């Protein structure tokens, strides 16, 4: 059962990892790095889990009651043994914790340290849609449309459009309640709040389309607060931005 569990997760992670080959990057791109840390973690907890599980199953099968008046033979431990059974596991867990913390810490720094000269876009969350303000004043929005039955029919607005190959930093806040901006393909999310500024950054390496969506409960249309990140080659992006200006 547990092997199945982790193969499901590992499989999912592997699929995602394939979609984002982790080739060498000039800047510390955190997206492929996330997948690497995730894989390490799966192996790490997989091993711990397997040890515990094998031992448990062995005990459960080996020590079944043989006769009605049989009692357990676990002995009171000596002080030394008892201490060893506390300190050694504690040491092992701590060592593993610090190993994981170190891995996570490095990735965290990449995630939070915005590269110099990243292209800055202001994101405003509102019930229930997104506005993206570009440095030249253009505002691009996204609002999900649905019919009377509640079926989604499309998205109004271009949403977040960015140029390929240039890191993007999103500076975010909300006009009403707490929202959260999540781009699964880039492994990032952060809340937007009224009265505070938060930020995120990502590196749109390849042209393409990715989903972004709201991940902090914000009322009736929380699940309809999504759109697409469209990554265009620089020239097309410039053309898009220019066309927005005129409009």
């Amino acid at each position, binding site marked *: 059962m547990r092997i199945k569990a982790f193969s499901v997760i590992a499989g999912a992670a592997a699929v995602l990892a394939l979609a984002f080959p982790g080739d060498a990057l000039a800047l510390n791109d955190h997206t492929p790095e996330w997948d690497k840390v995730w894989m390490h973690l799966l192996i790490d907890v997989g091993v711990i889990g397997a040890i515990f599980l094998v031992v448990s199953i062995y005990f459960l099968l080996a020590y079944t009651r043989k006769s009605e008046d049989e009692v357990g033979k676990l002995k009171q431990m000596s002080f030394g043994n008892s201490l060893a059974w506390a300190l050694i596991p504690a040491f092992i867990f701590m060592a593993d914790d610090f190993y994981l913390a170190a891995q996570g810490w490095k990735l965290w720094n990449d995630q939070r340290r915005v590269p110099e000269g990243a292209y*800055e876009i*202001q994101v405003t969350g509102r019930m229930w849609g997104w506005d993206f303000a570009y440095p030249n004043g253009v505002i691009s929005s996204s609002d999900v449309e649905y019919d009377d039955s509640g079926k989604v029919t499309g998205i109004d607005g271009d949403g977040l459009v960015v140029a390929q190959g240039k890191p993007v930093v999103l*500076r975010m*806040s909300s006009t009403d309640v707490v929202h959260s901006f999540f781009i699964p393909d880039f492994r990032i999310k952060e809340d937007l709040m009224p*009265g505070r*500024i938060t*930020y995120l950054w990502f590196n749109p390496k390849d042209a393409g389309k990715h989903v972004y969506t709201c991940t902090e409960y914000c009322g009736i249309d929380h699940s309809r607060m999504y759109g697409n990140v469209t990554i265009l080659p620089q020239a097309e992006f410039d053309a898009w931005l220019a066309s927005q200006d005129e409009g």
Partner: protein
Amino acid sequence: MMKTITISVLLAAMALLAVSPAEAAYRPTDSEIDPAMLKVDEKKILGNKIDIDLVFLDETGKEFTWKEKAGRAHVLVMSYFTCEGACPAFSADLADILEKTQALGRVKAGKDYDVITVSFDKNDTPKTATHFKHMLDLPAQLSENWSFASLKYPRQLKKFTSGLDFRYFWSFTDRMFYHPNVYYFISPEGRVVRVLHSSKVEPNDMQLALIDSFFNKLQPSQVITMAISFCYSYNYKEGKYGINYPLFFAMGSLFIGIGAFGVGAFIVRKRGKPKENQI
């Protein structure tokens, strides 16, 4: 000679203002001021980053960009150095408040933050800056950590002021600039963290705004500073800090349960040895 140049530059500036549609509404036809114009929309500019490519000249004539300022929080003030009324008074006020703030004992100019005055007058130069600073007669410690800068390329002014939502105009009748009197608090990363309107600033607000501006850089030794900052929260409507009441309610409530247990234990002990054995 100097005067003609000044006047012609001013006229040119006027012409520029006239053609730029955004500013057209504020063209001074009379000396009445639209108070909305002198407001800075704080929420709109929070988090804005100062353009790191802009080149400034300080009062000694040294060039610098904001990149070199990074790593240190700043109080940023916009002034013009030929001003004879409001600006020097406003700067003197700031010096006064900063002195009082320092007396509160948590933040120190030169250690936690620097002050910078940037001129929005195209005509200002290191020379006018020196004069202005000289006239201010700042206390030594502030003086060391307070620079008076003008842009090297004045045509880039707009680039600088628009990110700060800073609008101003020259009034012919009054022969002076009208402009907002605000303090901008700039984080070590060069981003706008807070804007306080000068008329309302008290040392406590100044201290809290300064702590906010370098909050991410607080050292473990500054836990008290951090705790102080948690005790207050910022009120956008009033542009002031207020006590963070929910925190105190919550901390107070921590004693409810413990107190209740104390009462319970007291009663049990008073009952004397429990009668449990008698059933």
